[in-house]
């Protein structure tokens, strides 16, 4: 019952602002993180990139583990359109031993990641995106030389059965590539919670 007031405020808010979504269209800065090959990767390295598929994922999460092949496929497909995929691990390595850089390297090698798998050791990039879970997907797009979040949420609507899945990311990128607004710009993300150190 405590949240009744909050809900009331939200309803009022929605009433006043309609469906306009303040969380999206958020600008994010360029970032540089260490890749599993030991080299730094920066969004600025991709001179021709129209946008990025940014995936927050991790080593241990059972639900995130379902997605490796899909990430490879998304990267293969959309790199051709200059929208490469970047995976970021923002998990707290002190709390979760399975999230160390060495284990990230092993995972990327074993599962043949064709995309950068970056460690966000300070969790700064996770906080920048307000990433909540692994996996959680973002599509950022270059507008006026700035990166704007155009989609955030789940990767698709079926973790265990890729063939049955509707890819929210593909849809968003496809729409952006032809110059349309993203029709489904936010879905709920879920999986393993990312806990941030203060």
């Amino acid at each position, binding site marked *: *019952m*405590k949240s*009744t007031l909050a809900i009331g405020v939200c309803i009022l808010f929605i009433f006043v602002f309609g469906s306009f979504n303040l969380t999206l269209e958020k600008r994010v800065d360029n970032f540089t993180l260490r890749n599993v090959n030991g080299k730094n990767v920066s969004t600025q390295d991709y001179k021709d990139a129209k946008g990025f598929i940014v995936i927050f994922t991790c080593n241990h999460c*059972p*639900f995130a583990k379902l997605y490796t092949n899909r990430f490879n496929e998304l990267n293969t497909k959309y790199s051709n359109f200059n929208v490469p995929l970047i995976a970021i691990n923002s998990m707290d390595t*002190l709390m979760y*031993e399975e999230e160390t850089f060495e284990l990230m390297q092993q995972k990327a090698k074993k599962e043949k990641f064709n995309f950068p798998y970056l460690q966000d050791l300070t969790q700064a990039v996770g906080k920048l995106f307000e990433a909540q879970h692994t996996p959680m997907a973002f599509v950022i797009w270059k507008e006026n030389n700035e990166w704007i979040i155009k989609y955030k949420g789940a990767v698709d*609507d079926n973790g265990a059965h890729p063939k049955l899945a509707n890819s929210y990311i593909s849809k968003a990128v496809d729409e952006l590539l032809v110059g349309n607004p993203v029709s489904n710009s936010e879905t*709920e993300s879920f999986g*393993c919670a990312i806990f941030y150190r203060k």
Partner: protein
Amino acid sequence: MRNSLLILGLIILFNSNASAQSYNTLWIPDTLTGTNFNLTIKDTFAQIVNTGNQTITGGINGKFWGPTLIINKGDLVNMNVQNDLNDSTTIHWHGMHLPAVMDGGPHQIIPPGTLWQPYWEVKNQASTLWYHPHMHEMSQEQITKGIGGFIIVRDAAEAALALPRKYGVDDIPIAITDRDFNTQNQFSIVPYGDSIMANMTLRAQYSVPAQYVRLRLLNGAIETSYNLGFSDNRSFYIIGTDGGLLAAPLLINGATPRFLLSAGERVEILVNFSGQAGSSVFLKAYNQSLGNFIPGGESFPNGPFASFLGHTNYNIVKLNVTNATANPITSVPTSLVTNTYPLEQDAALTRIITLSDSTGVTSVPILGPNAFILGHQLFNFNTINHSIPLNQTEVWELKSTSIFGHPFHIHDVEFKILTINGATAPTYQQGWKDVVLVEGGKTVRFIAKFDDYADATHPFMYHCHIALHEDEGMMGQFVVTDINSVNEISKEEIPITLFPNPAHDKLFVEFKNQAQSAYYVSIKDFLGRTKLMLPQPYLKDGIDISTLVKGVYTISIMEKASKQVVTKTFIVN
């Protein structure tokens, strides 16, 4: 929310069609037996809603809702509880009489990546208990995720009776709960769900043989009480309550045979399906007859307490009668077990616990209009609300001024209800209990003896078993103290030898002063991650460190009498 609208629509559709494909087979949890139990808690996922995405759940040993632990009275059981969630948790052995330090309440926090090894001698009589998380302020979320399981205690008295005992055949555990699924098929963390689940199965059905069948029913819900009965209004027998079997089977009959099962409560019933092969019947919740202030009896159209199941009747599990098994149970025993309850004349005192709404209580921060509290105060981790001398018999008087009904649960003991609002409790509530619904404005009195386990450090809890209320602070704690031992506390040296060092597989800890012993041992790696939590370990055989990788570790040993902590470093090679 409101995929649930769709789900409810589907449920209604399925119920009206009543076609066999509409139902899912009731999942029967695996069993674990013996005296050593390995329970690994981890995030997992399950295809719960038939179409669309999997639901993220908590699980034990890879399964959503954990295995049923079958244990025997008199055995020394050892639990190896590995927390592989990415969050801290606890596991409480609900209904079990054991030392407070083994109890798994909010003080026995298991950090991620840690192995917790409680153990105890099973003193409970044959009964249906359960285990679930008890992490303060996170109970609702972690219970919603489905972390938990049944415990079946067996003993000689129960084994001597001609009762159904074939697990999953004529002795069927059913955890009843409700959940709300959001648009992505994920659990919403809400007090009332829109979809009923039996053993975490939506629209469950199960085959029962044409004979007497024992159902072990657990209310595993966050908040809802279920007013249970069968769709054909058949009579049945209640044979056991929370803490074990009744003296004799109790026939529940009449025009509408019902009984109310609130959050945390268990009941064992015998249902006669003899000669009914080919027929079906539903176990149902008849919550339309519940008052507005019984959990599950309200009907909020909107807001966080809105539920399609509120104040309605609904099916829980469809039971399809098939042919009888070999050697079926075809009759009901005339008597069951002898229960010796504490006598009111032996009670040293009456302890009054108030249940109230926080409105107007100045010592309580504003929680909103309807936060609920015990003893006019919110739960505080560092406040022991009551100290009870070991072996004391007490009457607890639960006096409610709250507007709402609260299922009150106490750890450590099973109790006997004396009166509810001055009158004798309903017959079906007159056995051993550890949860009792205290309706708004009413007074419940029970009697219990606090024996066997004294510990001035670790408390037991008492609380409302509505997980939301418990998380918000409707909880208190008590210690059971042995007055003969409190004068021995002194600040003397605690010389300890640790060997071998470096160690491999086993680490031995020896107290030079043989009068000293370990109360708690914890082992951390060089980054401070807790790896092992060992309450009152038996050190003679050494500590099993085979799960530790090579490296430098610290071991902290809290001495039993003085509670002083000694910390040493050792190497695993």
